[in-house]
């Protein structure tokens, strides 16, 4: 039986097809992904190209309203950029930062969790205490602090130039304890099993046992929290950008778009804030719903707390 056949007959796919919420979320998520990453070719305008932006077009309402123009389907923002295109580019930035941050925190957290769980004793106590303390400060607080410090250290101008790598670093550093705790909990469960003992008896080095033998068996809880963590990272990025600690308005993410439109909501320009806001909620919501479904299907013993 080929792998494809095995996948087609699996319980995983069966339960996916039966769950309408999961299928709908997945389809919407795919659509959003395509929208975001095809932006350079499919977006009607290029918001990064200042030559095509005319300040006379600024603050136009969506096309179906009285003053709207058909050139700008969802209206324009305060600098005269087409809102739909800016949102597509912005979502790409948000998703990229979210994925980057999750990869970073997964690498950090999985490594620390593996070491803590496998080594045990003092190393374990120290690392887990560190994770507890950091978690008790709440990840958003830690992220805000780190980015505030970076911004004061580099100055606002330098910070804006390097915003993408800095945001990935900040969110990754703030959220690693989630992974570390999850991985450690399942390492503790696997450690006593016979196959680990067998590997140890034939004299394999600890590193090999940790990464080749134990790690693959801890992956299903990692997969489950990963979906939720992507949603969290996108939310954190939006929050930081909204506070002015994230992406600059010239290269906006969804968060900084919402921030830039917020001042104009009082004068009635609701579209600059509410459209990106809606897109952000939709993105986070479908990822969360997929995560919920994944948790029900894989049903790993998650660390409670």
């Amino acid at each position, binding site marked *: 039986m080929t792998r494809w056949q095995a996948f087609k007959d699996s319980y995983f796919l069966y339960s996916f097809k039966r769950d309408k919420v999961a299928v709908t979320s997945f389809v919407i998520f795919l659509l959003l992904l395509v929208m975001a990453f095809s932006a350079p070719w499919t977006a009607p305008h290029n918001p990064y190209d200042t030559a095509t932006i005319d300040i006379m077009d600024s603050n136009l309402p969506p096309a179906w309203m009285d003053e709207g123009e058909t050139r700008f389907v969802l209206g324009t923002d305060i600098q005269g950029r087409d809102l739909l295109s800016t949102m597509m580019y912005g979502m790409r930035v948000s998703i990229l930062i979210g994925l980057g941050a999750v990869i970073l925190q997964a690498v950090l957290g999985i490594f620390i969790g593996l070491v803590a769980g496998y080594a045990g004793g003092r190393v374990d106590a120290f690392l887990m*205490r560190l994770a507890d*303390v950091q*978690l*008790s*400060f*709440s990840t*958003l*607080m830690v992220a*805000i*602090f780190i980015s*505030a*410090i970076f*911004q*004061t*250290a580099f*100055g606002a101008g330098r910070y804006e130039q390097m915003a993408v790598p800095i945001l990935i670093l900040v969110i990754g550093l703030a959220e690693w304890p989630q992974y570390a705790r999850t991985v450690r909990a399942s390492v503790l469960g696997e450690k006593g099993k016979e196959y680990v003992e067998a590997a140890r008896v034939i004299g394999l080095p600890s590193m090999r046992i940790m990464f080749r033998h134990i790690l693959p068996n801890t992956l299903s809880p990692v997969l489950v929290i990963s979906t939720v963590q992507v*949603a969290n990272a996108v*939310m954190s990025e*939006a*929050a930081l950008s*909204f*506070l*002015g*600690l994230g992406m600059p308005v010239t290269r906006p993410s969804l968060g900084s778009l*919402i921030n830039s439109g*917020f001042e104009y*909501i*009082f004068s*009635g320009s*609701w579209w600059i*804030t*509410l459209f990106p*806001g809606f897109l*952000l*909620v939709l993105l*986070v*919501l479908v990822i*969360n*719903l997929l995560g*919920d479904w994944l948790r029900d299907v894989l049903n790993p013993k998650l660390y409670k*707390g």
Partner: protein
Amino acid sequence: MFAFLVRRISQAVFVMLVISLLGFSIRHQIGDPVRDLVGVSVSVAEREALRDELGLNDPFHVQYLRFLKGLLKGDLGQSFFFKKPALDVILAKMPATLELVFCAGVIIVVFSVPLGMYAAIRPKSFFSRLIMGGSIVGVSIPVFLTAILLIYLFSVILGWLPSYGRGELVMVGGWQTGMLTADGWLHLILPSIALSSIMLPLFIRLIRSEMMEVLETEYIRFAHAKGLSKVRVWLVHGFRNTLLPVITVGGVQIGTMIAFTILTETVFQWHGMGFMFLEAVQRADTSLLVAYLMVVGFLFVVVNTLVDILYGIVNPKVRVSGRQ
């Protein structure tokens, strides 16, 4: 019990030391106390003299010890922008934040307990599904967006509620409160709803899952079999035993609430600690930033330690093995 107390408190002191070391290195590396004191229009030679006088050319550990001594006396340095001791600035802004957190907390408790219990007792009913579906949507809406939507709906379109500021304030013994005037209450409504919106779904889900676990246990079945009224079983037997984990998680979530006050206060121009912190970042007011880190860190450590100790009193097993 005594050993547990000592261990837990020494741990808290250690964490506080680490935070102070972090805060000190930030100030040491980024901040410039001379600029904080005299501004930028003083000659280089005079600055050097002042640096020597202030002991800024001393070795790192000497300066750190001095910083620690200052901390113990409540001296967190001078704010560059306000030209006042940083601690005074923070303490003046604290009542605004605490009132906001308090109101949001009340909203969370009042709504999450009955909704969570209902969803646990009747998990299959339509209303429960609605609650659970609503809670996942609630988790997915960022708090600043909720705040903006509330402002747009209630201030811009309907014009019922004020959109920014704290309204009319009254001084009560050094505590500037908005809770004694009708105007102050009107200004509190939107920010507290916005702040509670992020925690409410989490608590509903938490109470539901804990309560469902409790309802499966033997003693609940026994209580039913004994013929006790359903309401009594749910409230006295079921809910009481749900409370313990809820309180533990709840205590820790206070930290998260403080983080979200930064967002809420920014949207509503609410002049509390969070708003002040963000202004300090924009003005590169390092001393105030570090002072905020110290104060918030201190609050977190105290709350977490108290929750752990309470938990240890209620649940003796924890004292031996540590919180799981």
